[in-house]
């Protein structure tokens, strides 16, 4: 999602700031961010996906970041991954549509999709409200089983602090 995050800020500053100032999405988004970050190991990709890992690094939950969700604008449909599919890091596993754009969601690491968040099909806007919430009713996209390769792939991802720094400077590239 690197592309969208940038383009919207350049092209539609009004839309971007409108999302930031939204009284609904802002507080909820903040809450989910802080709650989940303390409960699990969370990593981010440069393309703005996140993955939460269980303590034993055998399973995880993934989604798109709050930064990306804000930049995307109103999400009107989510193409969910196929359950049971095994994917490599960077593979397109689904997509989100907003503002006429179908943007791929990519697997942050090698993994097997074990469960998808069907709530998003009915309420795609959940991603705008609580993008980084991995609990019931949250905007997470899929639960996954992590392969050996997947554990190695983790080294290429950023932790929360590094990602915050990355998004802060992204517009300057």
């Amino acid at each position, binding site marked *: 999602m690197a592309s969208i995050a940038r383009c919207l800020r350049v092209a539609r500053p009004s839309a971007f700031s409108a999302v930031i100032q939204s009284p609904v999405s802002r507080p909820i988004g903040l809450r989910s961010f802080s709650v989940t970050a303390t409960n699990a190991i969370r990593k981010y990709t440069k393309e703005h996906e996140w993955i939460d890992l269980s303590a034993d690094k055998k399973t995880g939950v993934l989604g798109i970041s709050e930064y990306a969700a804000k930049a995307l604008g109103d999400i*009107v*449909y989510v193409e969910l991954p196929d359950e049971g599919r095994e994917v490599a890091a960077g593979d397109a596993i689904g997509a989100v*549509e907003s503002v*006429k754009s179908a943007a791929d969601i990519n697997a942050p690491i090698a993994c097997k999709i074990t469960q998808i968040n069907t709530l998003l*099909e009915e309420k795609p806007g959940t991603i705008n409200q609580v993008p980084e919430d991995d609990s019931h009713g949250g905007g997470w996209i899929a639960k996954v089983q992590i392969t050996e390769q997947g554990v190695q792939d983790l080294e290429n991802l950023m932790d929360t602090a590094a990602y915050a720094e990355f998004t802060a400077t992204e517009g300057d590239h």
Partner: protein
Amino acid sequence: MALTSRLSRVFPRRAPSTATPARAPSRTRTPGPTTPTARAFTQSLSAPVQIYRSTSTDPYLNLSIEHHLLQHSDPASTILFLYANRPTVVIGRNQNPWLEVNLHQLRQGLGPPLQSPSPSPSSPAGGQTAQQQEDASPGTNAAPIALVRRRSGGGTVFHDAGNVNYSVICPPAVFDRDRHAEMVVRALRRLGVLRARVNGRHDIVVDVGGEGGIDGDGGRTGGGVQTFKVSGSAYKLTRTRSLHHGTCLLSSPNLGRVSGLLRSPAEGFIKARGVESVRSPICNVGVGADAFVEAVVREFRTMYGHGTARTQVVGEEEALATEGVVKGVRELTTPEWIFGQTPQFTFSTCPTEDDARERPPSVDDLPDGFQANFTVRHGEITSAAVSGLEYHDLTRQRLHYIQDWKRTLARASPTPVDTDVAGDWLNHMFGIETAADKASGAVAEMAVGMISDSIVGSIRDGDGTP
């Protein structure tokens, strides 16, 4: 997204031992040398700036060339691709063909050309100077209009030879939604369409009448100004690339038919997830296709090429000599892609809790007391209630393969019922044709007839049976 796995279902006749690679050239019906041009089409994929123009008018082929460029070009390159399609309705990635399109009209084709090229005021550029008649030949008009589900987001549009499509593929870092729509606006202004501009929906519109100083979109605004859409945009964003493509109505003789083509009889009965189209009044800009292409190429070169990149003409044969393109066409023409990728929707003949709208008058054509209510997920009926009976057999059926609702209802009912009127009505709703001369009225069969004759041989393999 495991797209190729769907292909085998639609082309089941493929000989089991044959693999897809490199079969395309030998399957091409028109004989001719393919190798030299094939090399030409793919050899520039690493060049920093590339410009292509397709001579094919097949929508599935053109979108597959475009997708191939998106996936296989150098991630740092910037590409302009221009093409025009024969009469086609293109729905967005996450749209519902039963809701967006009049499938009956699609089958019938365009019929004789309309006298007036446009219901809108004459061209804002000062006259329909380049009225094209490519679609006026009876042969073309009898052909069914193609139905395409594209890979990008957005709403439904109509294409024909009087509409040229532009497509820009570039790295995500330089992408923004208006950048290349503005490029096309500059080209249009250079061609005399001075009041073209990009609106808030990233579409290109033209203001007509009034004194200028326009601030509104969508039809009549203050001061006698009317605003017409001439170009629609859609985007596909992958991990490494971004694609913006748009239509541009130059001189379509079919504008008067577009509204009807894009209106489904089932509109008032379907509640769909996914993306609904936004209707806009449209008009032609009155510019010739070659002039438009030249002007867009010029603006593109000014932005990226400094005059160095040459336009490569891509013909059908060389496009079909590229395996990835053939795979793309195969996928785009499968009923599983066109219909089976439809987001979940409900169809109900009377107001429900989920969809409380009052139903259109056509519901009066149903027999007294007949009610139908079902949920369709990815083209498959997942639950159904018809006239209070338990129609268990309806579930798990795929909507696009239903050949005649009369038979389907009769078979699903535990007791003998008269299903003729209700069946005909449902056939009408879902675009099913039951004429005696048709082998099958299922909408899935439409896809087969919609592929251009010139390329159909190339994308089939196996025993060659259509």
